[in-house]
């Protein structure tokens, strides 16, 4: 096991896959000469040259679509968005074209493309730079959505995403790029898309959390343990396909569940997971499923308001107290 930063794990995945397959290339704002806005692509230009590491203008709609067309015509693009908050400009290409062209042409084209970049808030960046889009993409048939929380998962899943023959949305976080974690040294190490991981075992309550929220859940679990509550943390890692089985199995053991979701409350991941649990494990529940989400309010700038807005360990502990009737 090597200990790597999240960004280094991502870079290794991209590097290895570019080395494996000439058709893989990376394109996005500042990925080449600047070495990446968050240094994920640092050094790749030196290794692979200007043909395969391509700086784009600030034209998300345009370069996302060029990526989709290139994928249709035999390449395997990795499209980096500086943040998924900017990918909103490219939604016509991701939703109307990447996810639909194969179906509407009766299977005549395939679109092996990865759209990747940071998701959700990264501190006090104001309302337009702070939204979590994972569940929104997961709503659309044909898109896979990955949002890992640790470097090892990130590397294994990004390699799988690049090898996937269909479009994949791969989400990261500005605040996790420097996070260190163990990454397998195993040659050609990959993690299958759609598999959750039990990150902490416990019998009293199941907490479902991924991405940045996993780390908040971990803090909450550590504090709860001091009070004698052992939480089991399931990190879905992949939003879609969602590993319902892993969550349901855990809930059948703990009989209680809190879902932590970095997005707003309406129609998000938390709602979907709560629905799945009531359908699959209704008789096992000792309390209604609770969720911890952002409020139905835009991201504020001011520090005290921002702290109030973003879910924290305290919110999770309160939710756990509610499902354990403490």
């Amino acid at each position, binding site marked *: 096991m090597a200990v790597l930063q999240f960004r280094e794990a991502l870079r290794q995945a991209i590097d290895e896959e570019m080395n494996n397959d000439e058709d893989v290339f990376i394109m996005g704002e500042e990925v080449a000469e600047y070495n990446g806005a968050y240094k994920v692509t640092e050094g790749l230009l030196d290794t692979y040259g200007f043909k395969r590491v391509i700086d784009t203008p600030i034209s998300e709609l345009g*370069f996302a679509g060029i990526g989709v067309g290139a994928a249709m015509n035999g390449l395997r693009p990795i499209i980096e968005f500086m943040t998924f908050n900017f990918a909103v400009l490219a939604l016509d290409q991701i939703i109307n074209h990447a996810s639909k062209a194969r179906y509407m042409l009766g299977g005549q084209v395939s679109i092996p493309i990865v759209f990747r970049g940071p998701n959700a808030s990264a501190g006090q960046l104001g309302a337009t730079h702070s939204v979590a889009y994972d569940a929104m993409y997961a709503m659309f048939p044909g898109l896979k959505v990955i949002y890992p929380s640790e470097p090892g998962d990130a590397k294994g899943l990004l390699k799988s995403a690049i090898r996937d023959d269909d479009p994949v949305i791969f989400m990261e976080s500005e605040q996790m790029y420097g996070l260190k974690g163990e990454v397998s040294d195993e040659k050609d190490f990959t993690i299958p898309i759609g598999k959750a991981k039990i990150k902490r075992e416990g019998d009293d309550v199941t907490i479902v959390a991924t991405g940045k929220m996993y780390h908040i859940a971990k803090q909450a679990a550590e504090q709860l343990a001091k009070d004698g509550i052992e939480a089991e943390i399931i990190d879905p890692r992949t939003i879609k396909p969602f590993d319902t089985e892993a969550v349901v199995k855990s809930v059948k053991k703990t009989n209680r569940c809190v879902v932590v979701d970095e997005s707003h409350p309406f129609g998000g991941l938390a709602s979907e997971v709560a629905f799945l649990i009531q359908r699959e494990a209704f008789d096992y529940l000792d309390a209604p499923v609770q969720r911890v989400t952002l409020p139905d309010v835009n991201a504020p700038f001011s520090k005290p308001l921002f702290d109030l807005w973003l879910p924290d360990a305290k919110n999770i502990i309160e939710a756990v107290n509610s499902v354990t009737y403490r």
Partner: protein
Amino acid sequence: MAKKKQEAIFTPIGNNGDDNGRIDKAVDLPEATNKSHKKLGLSDDQVTEMYEQMFLQRRFEERAMQMYQKGKFGGFLHLYIGQEAISTGTAFALKNDDDIITAYRDHGWGLVRGVTPKAGMAELFGKADGCSKGKGGSMHFANVKEHFWGGYGIVGGHIPLGGGLAFANKYKDNGRVTACFMGDGAVDQGALHETLNMSQLWKLPAIYVVENNGYSMGTAARRHTVGEIYERAHGYGMKNAVFNGMDVFTVYENMKKISEEVRKDNMPYFVEIRTYRYRGHSMSDPQKYRTKGELEEYQQTDPIERLKTYIIDKKVATKKELEEIEEQVEEAVLEAVEFADNAPFPKDEALYEDMFAGEPYFHH
């Protein structure tokens, strides 16, 4: 005395439905080429093939319209009638492995790139034997094997895809040129401008072609866009051209020259081909935005009649020979209608097919 306040006006006003006898043409047609087919390097056989193809596109759509009106199928039906010289002239000018992509007025493009009348008509009817297995319908004809990448339904949305096809061709250095067609309405979309900028900057072997048929749905070109369309290219330092789309030889001559130039120097082109849409935007369009006089004036320049006259005048073929071709086409189209009518609909299982190239996954 206070000045009388004028009401603010934004969009230039259309014809307001009053036909005062004045013909306000939506597009001005540049002169057609005066070169003979021999001078253009086209054989007699190629010219009659062009005629056959244009006549096929016309009859296919006229029959499709009848079937639509009879209630044989639903959805949208955007007709290409009047614009056949563009698809035909282009397909003859390009190499067979050059890539073509277009918007939703795509039947002619499918037919000229190997979608058989049967597969095309079956697609309109939503049948399993359709060129896109009945999953796409009128707007999504495609024949990727013959490098026709499809019709797309979001105005301007396929323009970056065209850029991407060209990007991959340059990446693979395979010498293929991409021709990306769009209507004049797409000129107003940001996707075009982002793609033009990157194409020029990245030297993509692509030709972006506006089929200016005078109307963005029901809005005349002069009411939806400023200046001359082809002049937009100046802003990107891109090579450009404007020419007559009602004459198949003119389209052939220009597209041949342009495609060879793009193939040679990898620099993109922005092209405006002026044409005219005889029918409404789609089947539900009452066409109140134009006068009968205008339509009739353009119909006098009909590309199929024009070629027919040329063929007979220059003795490329006899009137009788052309009539034989017409009969064969008519028969093929009627057969296609019968085929489509009797062909099976997709099986229920097909609902879940063609979503994924890899392992399928459906959330339940």
